[in-house]
């Protein structure tokens, strides 16, 4: 938290024109559009934001409707995504969980899917999309740490849905993820989580 300052929507973050997500430009200056942090170098990190799909994103979705040509999938956007049964031959049922990659994204934010995979039953949770990079960690250090200690698989969707396999220690994963949500903006988080998971293990 030290030497980082919180900025609210409308606060100036640079006197140059920067075109970044979650900011807007007026005249020659750039302003924050969502609550965020500015570090000592003047870099702006949003703390809360809405998910905007980007190509190559990993998405986790829930099947919400079966239609004659395919499936509607809830991917945490305002409109559901669509998986065509032409591209994906496996039969899906309502409530099934799928993971996929975002293909083309159009200007109103509708996504094409590629590499669709059906995930086995598990727990799905919401995770704030702005904090996903912390859950994955540098070179996925954080998520592999959690995977290692939970004993099962976890799939993190950039869209803010996280799937946890039935084989993992779900209560432990949920507790850990809660800490990450609350402390996502703090430094040294991976070390803290490593320590926490170690303590939990010896506590058993």
């Amino acid at each position, binding site marked *: 938290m030290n030497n980082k300052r919180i900025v*609210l*929507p*409308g606060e100036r973050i640079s006197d140059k024109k920067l075109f970044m997500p979650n900011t807007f430009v007026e005249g020659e200056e750039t302003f924050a559009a969502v609550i965020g942090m500015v570090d000592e170098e003047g870099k702006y990190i949003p703390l*809360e934001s809405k998910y905007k799909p980007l190509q190559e994103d990993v998405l986790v979705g829930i099947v919400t409707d079966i239609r004659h040509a395919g499936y509607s999938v809830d991917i945490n956007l305002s*409109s559901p995504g669509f998986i065509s049964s032409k591209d994906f031959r496996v039969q899906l049922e309502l409530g099934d969980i799928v993971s996929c990659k975002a293909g083309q994204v159009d200007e*109103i934010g509708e996504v094409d899917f590629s590499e669709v995979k059906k995930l086995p039953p598990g727990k799905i949770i919401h995770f704030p999309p702005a904090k996903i990079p912390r859950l994955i960690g540098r070179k996925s250090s954080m998520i592999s740490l959690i995977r290692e200690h939970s004993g099962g698989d976890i799939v993190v969707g950039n869209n803010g849905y996280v799937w946890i396999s039935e084989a993992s220690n779900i209560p432990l994963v949920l507790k850990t993820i809660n800490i990450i949500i609350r402390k996502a903006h703090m430094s040294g988080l991976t070390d803290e989580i490593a320590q926490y998971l170690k303590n939990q293990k010896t506590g058993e």
Partner: protein
Amino acid sequence: MGQDSDIKLLVDGKRLDGRSQFDLRNIRIEAGILHDADGSAFVEWGKNKVICGIYGPRECIPRHEASPYKALVKCRYSMAPFSSLEEHSRSGPSRRSVELSKVIREVFENLIITESFPRTQINIFVDVLQSDGGTRTTCITAAAVALANAGIPMRDMASAVAVGKADDILIADLAKEEDNFGQCDMPVAFSYRKKDILLLQMDGLLTREEIETLLNEAEKASDKVYAKQFDALKKVYESPEENFKM
């Protein structure tokens, strides 16, 4: 407003609750108090208690209202049946709550970057749990915090305060008695950065000069409100352990 009474609203420059002319009541703001809403806030402003929840941007219902150019902002203001001593005995839609929903909606239509979310709607729900004069300004203050907490992109923050006149003296942040028996009540909402006036209503009479003085005072007061909003949002991240949850 304008009701006759022999209550003296100001005695020796002190108001009924002991405040002086341009003092504000105590303001306490908590952000992020609801688990399931996208963003939320609770504001205690004197005896006013307001809770606000934000949902969206989400699918626009009914579909035909959706705009292909921008997100719709929808606001519902409601008073709890137990929120005040008289009048608001039922919380269904009334002339008054429809008006307040509209003015609050218009404040945020001017702030939210709605073009980023075409074909969607953003819902603002404000519920007054206890009222003591100045609920619309309290609601705007709460909704601005909740929207920032939800991560909805905005061009500016909004802070609101009421100013007015009672016993021929100009005052800020009117309480219920001053509103009911005073001479004028003028709620104003300012954006913080540009100082745009987002809401200006007036009930009662003021001279041109009085309005000028009061707008200046309201601007100063809204900066104090903004400081409280800022602290509330900062607290969510600075001390994540002590967060207040309902």
